[in-house]
């Protein structure tokens, strides 16, 4: 009786993992650790960082600007994710049920391929109060000019709308890919039984898409928290601080005021919040085993 032990591959596995681990340690681990260290120091890039304990954090918790930034970011996420997901779901369903044209799918992706800064500049001109095309249109139908970027109530919905425009196609494509996994015979059966499109969408598409939808939702939610470039190009956090999102707040503290320690503390805080969201995401994914059995 030969008793060959199963070969132990662990040593080889670590060897293969090594390059990635080194990259991870150098480019993520070390900077992250440094970031955490700076968050407990007084550091402005020009001095030597001195340890100040939790001072940055206590200051952060009392900083109205910081809480305003968190609130503004949350408002953006709600606006952006809400509109983006609904639109993407609609478009994906249309693509799935009506046409499967490759040209159409490619076209949908176009805005996503344009760099964010270009998108920001493009919309800044289109939506400008005085020279913008959109306000000219509004004017011809007799509506007054809207300060899309300068009116405090409009600024954030405008930014959210721009990013929705940019990312809907991409999100729709992800959802569409999820829909393709739903077996065609279900739809055929349902239509023989006399179900309409709306009923099929609610009874077949939505439930079976749930795992994909959950993934897409939470991934885009985290991405949405990191809104920066559109704001840096268009509103610069204004008017007053109506669009001063958390990333812009961190940017100002770090690279305008050179409060590196303080900015690092805000970044760590944000990382914690994103961590919580990640945990929720993990849970959602586990909980949503596919209903396709």
């Amino acid at each position, binding site marked *: 009786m030969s008793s060959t032990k199963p070969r132990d591959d662990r040593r080889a596995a670590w060897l293969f993992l090594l390059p990635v681990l080194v990259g991870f340690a150098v480019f993520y681990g070390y900077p992250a650790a440094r970031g955490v260290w700076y968050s407990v120091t007084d550091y402005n*890039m020009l001095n030597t960082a001195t340890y100040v304990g939790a001072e940055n954090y206590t200051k952060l918790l009392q900083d109205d600007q910081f809480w305003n930034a968190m609130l503004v970011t949350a408002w953006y996420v709600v606006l952006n994710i809400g509109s983006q997901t609904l639109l993407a779901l609609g478009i994906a369903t249309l693509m799935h049920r009506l046409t499967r044209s490759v040209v159409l799918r490619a076209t949908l992706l176009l805005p996503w391929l344009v760099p964010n800064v270009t998108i920001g500049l493009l919309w800044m001109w289109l939506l400008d109060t005085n020279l913008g095309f959109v306000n000219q249109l509004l004017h011809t139908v007799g509506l007054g000019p809207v*300060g899309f970027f300068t009116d405090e109530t409009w600024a954030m919905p405008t930014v959210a709308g721009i990013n929705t425009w940019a990312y809907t196609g991409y999100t729709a494509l992800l959802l569409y890919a999820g829909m393709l996994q739903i077996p065609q015979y279900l739809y055929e059966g349902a239509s023989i039984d006399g179900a309409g499109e709306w009923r099929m969408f609610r009874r077949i598409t939505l439930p079976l898409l749930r795992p994909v939808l959950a993934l897409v939702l939470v991934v885009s939610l985290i991405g949405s928290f*990191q809104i920066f470039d559109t704001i840096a190009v268009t509103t610069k956090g204004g008017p007053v601080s109506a669009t001063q999102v958390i990333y812009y707040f961190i940017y100002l503290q770090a690279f305008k*005021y050179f409060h590196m320690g303080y900015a690092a503390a805000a970044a760590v805080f944000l990382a914690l919040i*994103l961590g919580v969201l*990640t945990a929720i995401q993990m849970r959602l994914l586990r909980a949503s085993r596919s209903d396709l059995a």
Partner: protein
Amino acid sequence: MIRTSRVGAALLTLAVAAGVAACSSTTEEEPGAAVTLDYWLWDDNQKASYQQCADEFTKANPNITIKISQAAWNEYWQNLTTQIAAGDAPDVWTNQGSYYPQFVSSGQILDIQPYVTADKVDLSQYQGGLADLFTKGDQRFGLPKDWDTMALVYNTEHLKAQGIDAASLANLTWNPTDGGTFEQLIAKATVDEKGRNGLDPAFDKTKVKVFGYLPEWADGSQGQNGWGNLAASNGFTYLDKNPWGTQYKYDDPKLAQTIDWFKSLSAKGYAPALDKASTLSRDSLLNAGKGAITFAGSWMINSYLGEGAKLKFAFAPLPAGPQGRKTAINGLSDAIWAGTKHKDEAWKWVKFLGSADCQNIVGGNGVVFPAIKTASEKALAAHTAKGRDVKVFVDEAAAPGGTFFVPITEHGNEVSQLVQDAIQSAILGQSDSATALKKANDQVNALFK
């Protein structure tokens, strides 16, 4: 995993900025050996002029080569700070009032007073007061290179069409109560869609075609492009002493009055309200014929009078307020990095930059007004030769008591954001001007405690 990497990336930004990867390879050299000095500036319009200076300098000092690097305004300061943090800053760089105090406080700029004394540099050759902006106590952190003042810029055709005599713009008056002849001018220059001007009783302020005045509300803590000049002519001073004051006075009612006056322009339909304002620059709006008059700095001369301008523009002096005519004057300087390996060579270059030899070259190109008075005249002559009437900037700079320096203090960028937000919130009507400015002033002064 995506999630982890994003969290990491958030922190990575900070760590990269901290200068993880930067290296310096400067070594000590024998005196007389070939030296290359790094020189930084941000204005691409000026790069060619300074390259000419560098060439002249190298001709006179064959062992020193100047390597000029130019980066856009925002990146300029980030790069500079990062490079300093990494111990590899340029030997000489161009400084500006809001940014340079932090480099002084952190000991990054070389005190050049000993050199100035030893080489007997004539500080009286510069436009009055400019040289003092870059001193702290008896230390000196740079020699002035240029200056700028403010004036009104207007669309000549539009004003003519509205029956406004251009000569009447030379003696405008202003006060915060009724706006003086300046407000009359703005009203006349404002036109609604039916062609009625702002003084017409039937003027429809909801349908304005051309605004008489275009305000700048993203104007930091200085209001150089608008409110600062009028507030100063109303008797407002920014702070206890300049440079290096520690007590701001944004709660001065004279400033609040000025802001209220600007607000009243929008209410009357003579200027776009902030929440209906364009995010584009005022010169593009003027070029598109959407506005008639605004404030312009002398650095904008080539934009308004150059080939790029779509319409015809001209400059007029600022209106005179209750305390007379006051224009903000601001200057740049060249500083030497305290950590440079080539202090003596860097000083030679800075001295050359601050000398008539270099400033005449720069002035002759008519891009900016050099700090040396005679070189400024060269710049004026260069503009006049091109048929550009820009005398008003020079006259205002020379008028006794007609200028004020924009504040140079610590925490410049934070003060800027706080005050700008306060003024915007007052303009938007979130708060009244006096309350908003009082609150901002308390926050500003708390920074200095």
